[in-house]
């Protein structure tokens, strides 16, 4: 693990910012719940909570061992490739570790929880609670530590600058790759394996609209996410990009501008396409702006950050529509577009706007790693996991709702739930 010295002031600031970061988790949890159906709301929110708990335990027991330390190095073409961390077992010796190492580990505990929540939103209304916890444990114990070591822990992606003269190596201050794209690609794997919700894609005709049940949860989740993201991006700029304290306000402004630009663009696109702005798509646009800012808020100028947000905001509603209508991908939370595509765009933008030569290629190599290695690996692990812990609930469970089926009671017991037309 990187043990760069950190001043007392920077340590206190970074710790305070990381303690705000769970608000991003709370925001995403509310968005996941609000975009699902009312008959699965309690199961969805309980699942978010259980996933945070399971990832913390799995990461402490297994994942943290693979993330830090000097790392295993192989020599290829006379260059070192640091591919796996060698941290202490069971988070041992944490109190004696350097201040930077302690903050890094806290950041990674929070990061893995957020990464594992993202596929849970995509599997809404059909993913079993045990399956959600199992896939979170797999992510926290295997793929996340591997990727986080490569990007944050002195692994080969972070060393691309030293070993191949590619800028400053792969840059990801706010976890766009390790959290957002990993989560988004995991969401794609879950959707592929679990399949669409029953009645979503009839054999003939257009796909059935299954709108989210609570726009207030979704939009309030966006506001919570802003606070969490500000903490996350600024802490990440300190921890991983080693930005001086004087440059941190710009990182925060960039985060806000990216989200703002994205929301305005999505608002305009949905108003132009549908005649009225769409609340859930605007929420997705806002979140896509935040996700894109994770990669580049600590690197770009405010104007560039606004541009990054505008592009994310234009692309989000169009891609959500494309995925559902043209590609038959049933993603209730829009996580694949928001987290995977938004994160990839942010990583690319960090390379486009960087001033160091070779930085764009470093970012492209990171993107190629995510698409070419991480996605197939996650799919393989989830496919195997699905054989042991079936992801999808049975048809009867899906019909009565996940709340009644898995918890024995609904989130809104006094509501009368209307008959579902898709089951005729």
């Amino acid at each position, binding site marked *: 693990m990187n043990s760069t010295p950190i001043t007392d002031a920077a340590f206190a600031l970074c710790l305070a910012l990381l303690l705000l970061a769970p608000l991003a988790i709370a925001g995403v949890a509310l968005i996941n719940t609000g975009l699902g159906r009312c008959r699965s709301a309690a199961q969805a929110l309980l699942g978010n909570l259980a996933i945070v708990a399971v990832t913390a335990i799995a990461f402490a027991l297994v994942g943290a061992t693979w993330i830090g330390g000097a790392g295993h190095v192989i020599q290829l073409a006379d260059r070192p490739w640091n591919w796996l961390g060698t941290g202490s077992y069971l988070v041992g010796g944490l109190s004696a570790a350097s201040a930077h190492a302690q903050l890094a580990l806290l950041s990674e505990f929070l990061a893995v929880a957020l990464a594992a929540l993202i596929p849970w939103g995509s599997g809404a209304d059909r993913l079993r609670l045990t399956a959600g916890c199992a896939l979170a444990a797999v992510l926290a114990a295997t793929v996340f530590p591997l990727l986080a070591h490569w990007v944050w822990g002195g692994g080969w992606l972070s060393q691309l600058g030293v070993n191949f003269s590619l800028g400053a190596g792969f840059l990801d201050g706010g976890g766009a790759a390790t959290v957002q794209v990993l989560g988004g690609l995991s969401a794609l794997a879950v959707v592929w394996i679990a399949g669409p919700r029953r009645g979503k894609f009839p054999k003939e005709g257009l796909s059935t609209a299954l709108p989210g049940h609570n726009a207030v949860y979704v939009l309030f989740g966006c506001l919570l996410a802003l606070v969490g993201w500000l903490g996350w991006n600024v802490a990440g700029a300190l921890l991983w990009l080693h930005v001086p304290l004087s440059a941190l306000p710009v990182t925060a402004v960039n985060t806000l501008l990216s989200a703002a630009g994205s929301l305005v663009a999505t608002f305009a696109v949905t108003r132009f396409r549908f005649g009225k702005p769409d609340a859930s798509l605007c929420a997705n646009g806002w979140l896509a702006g935040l996700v894109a800012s994770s990669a580049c808020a600590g690197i770009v100028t405010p104007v560039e950050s606004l541009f990054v947000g505008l592009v994310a905001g234009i692309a989000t509603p169009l891609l959500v529509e494309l995925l559902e209508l043209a590609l038959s991908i049933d993603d209730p939370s829009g996580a694949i577009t928001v987290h995977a595509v938004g994160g990839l765009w942010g990583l690319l933008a960090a390379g486009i706007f960087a001033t160091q030569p070779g930085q764009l290629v470093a970012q492209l190599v990171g993107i190629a790693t995510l*698409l070419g290695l991480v996605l197939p690996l996650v799919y393989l692990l989830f496919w195997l996991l699905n054989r042991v812990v079936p992801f999808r609930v049975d048809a009867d469970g899906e019909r009565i709702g996940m709340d009644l089926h898995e918890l024995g009671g609904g989130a809104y017991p006094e509501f009368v739930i209307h008959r579902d037309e898709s089951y005729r």
Partner: protein
Amino acid sequence: MKYAGLLVMPAGFFLTIAALVLFPDAAPREAFVLCGLAVECLGLAVAVRGHMEAARGEGR
């Protein structure tokens, strides 16, 4: 078809790694990194196409 696409994607990744190792000059390295990404996109497109057929075929 989905599995074929998912198998093509690591090939693109290894092409990218090969570009780093084999080409010290910037221009051919960039070109091969882009080729690697293009192969990955091709694999992703095939995998998505395979999923579409399965999703529509199930008609859940």
